[in-house]
């Protein structure tokens, strides 16, 4: 399973809507831009957003003798994507499955996708600590999994759920690469005042409390993910782009250390 994959990074969060998919796609794009070969697997079966965020909405996956061929974002085939979104007929269709069926689908995603050789596989997950997560964990544990990034927003309702996700990682012995605080502040386009809509600092204090690395705070910027492009290249030197590049740098350093071990 996942034979040609060198590093696996999971993107998790107990809370919904904190930006897991945005972080996953931006991470994948930034790693690709750094010259890596990257795979992005979306295991959110009920709400797949990766196809939309990468502007790949009408793409389809194909079968080849080795398995499913993922959808590539670029001609050079440096970023491969797999999501249930590619398998649905209409964007209005819902997947109404109970756990066991979801588990089966995720197992297929893990075993049957023909990623070829890739440096990083990023796995985007739905919120919670349930079937999808247990299945991914069980299957990824024996593989070269670097660990998990936990995404949160700064307010207490979100932090509360992310603490549960931390417990989940510890219970299942998945290393925690660090915490990312998303939607940290919003800079008013009219007067440049920064408002902390969802308060601020929650991610950092959670990281301190749990003694895990704090990877950075990403401000709210309505332009992120609109074009399906990497913000690091489309909005260079903006606070969001800087936040993402710093996160990617920390991760690549961490994973180099992991491979040396």
């Amino acid at each position, binding site marked *: 399973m996942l034979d040609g994959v060198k590093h696996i990074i999971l993107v998790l969060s107990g*809370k919904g809507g904190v930006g897991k998919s945005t972080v996953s796609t931006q991470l994948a794009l930034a790693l690709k831009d750094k010259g890596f070969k990257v795979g992005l697997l979306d295991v959110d079966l009920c709400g797949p957003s990766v196809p939309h965020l990468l502007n790949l909405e009408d793409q389809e996956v194909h079968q080849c003798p080795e398995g499913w061929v993922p959808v590539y974002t670029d001609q050079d085939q440096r970023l491969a994507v797999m999501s249930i979104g590619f398998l649905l007929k209409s*964007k*209005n269709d*819902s997947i109404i499955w109970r756990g066991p069926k979801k588990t089966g689908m995720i197992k297929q995603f893990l075993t049957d996708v023909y990623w070829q050789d890739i440096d990083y596989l990023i796995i985007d997950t739905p919120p919670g600590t*349930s079937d999808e997560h247990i299945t991914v964990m069980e299957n990824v544990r024996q593989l070269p999994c670097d660990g998990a990034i936990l995404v949160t927003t700064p307010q207490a309702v979100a932090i509360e759920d992310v603490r549960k996700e931390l417990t989940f990682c510890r219970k299942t012995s998945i290393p925690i690469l660090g915490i990312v605080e998303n939607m940290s502040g919003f800079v008013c386009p009219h007067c440049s005042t920064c*408002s902390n809509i969802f*308060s601020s600092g929650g991610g950092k204090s959670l990281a301190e409390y749990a003694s895990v690395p704090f990877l950075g705070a990403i401000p709210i910027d309505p332009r992120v993910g609109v074009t399906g492009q990497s913000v690091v290249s489309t909005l260079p030197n903006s606070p969001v782009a800087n936040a993402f590049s710093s996160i990617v740098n920390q991760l690549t350093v961490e994973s180099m250390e992991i491979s040396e071990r």
Partner: protein
Amino acid sequence: MATKPEDAPEHCPGVESDSAGKGSACQGCPNQSICASGVALGPDLSAEQVKARLSSVKNTIIVLSGKGGVGKSTFTSLLARTLAAKDANSNIAVLDIDVCGPSMPRVMGVLNEQVHQSGSGWSPVFVDDNLSVMSVGFLLSSPDDAVIWRGPKKTGMIRQFLSEVDWGDTVDFLIIDTPPGTSDEHLSIVQYLKCMNNLQAIVVTTPQEVALLDVRKEIDFCRKTSIPILGVVENMTSFICSNCKQSSEIFPKNTGGAEAMCAELNVPLLGKVPLDPRLAQSCDEGGNFIQEFSDSPATTAFIEIVSSKYIEAEDGGTEKGRFKDYRNPRELKSFCLVHAKPFIFYKLVGKFPFCYY
């Protein structure tokens, strides 16, 4: 054979056994507090029992959204609080079926409360005289406790909530807060509640396409399971800068927002609620936003939604002497038996109220 969760230690006595959660193997097991409470397990109650228990419920509203973090829990709490404040004689119940990420204890300001068992079932936690809440959050011993369950166990818990919680003699509105998605929790709740009168769904969304994408799926879910949709609420519509008072779209309506989606799918749009940082803060602190910030545009929007023609109690709030033939819960609850003084927050121990200070 004894049922053992996957994360249970080797010598788990089995979740159905008498020593579940109490045995020596249970020490340090992630499920200990829940097993010990007996709520996850126990007898397998049929849908009939759920029906019997919920026969006192007049209206049920399920708050749904395919997308996470759009404000389901926020909306649920405000809807419940507004309905409760509107008519002191009504009885409003809130059930939080988000098993992995329960938010109700926090947003309702009853974080460290516990549920108690009495002869008539589980007593919910009271936020106000006529507003009570039940959530898995009350059963966890620490905020770090995670409920790492696959679907069937979550279903079991929801079934127990539906059949065991004693909401009182009449419930005018039962409001159900759900986790994001269209999965076990949703299927279970719909399965159990299908037979009920006046079951309706409110779908919450934010304006950007990533959210609407998932919300479309939720609407499809409602249609496939034939739950009538009361309407859609667009939350976090725009943000008004506190400095320059100009509005910006933080989650841009790149595809026309909820308005366009509602028109396309032919469902009513109940209203739009602007983003207000004070609302997020108030939720974190468990405050009563509607009361504390009655001048906020978000409050105005909420009141409008709640008083819209769509959210009307079937069989109205007119039956004044409803409690006459029963014990009057409000009278009983207004006086603490230990401190011998009136109180606002209380919990019931058996039939008796105790204040919480």
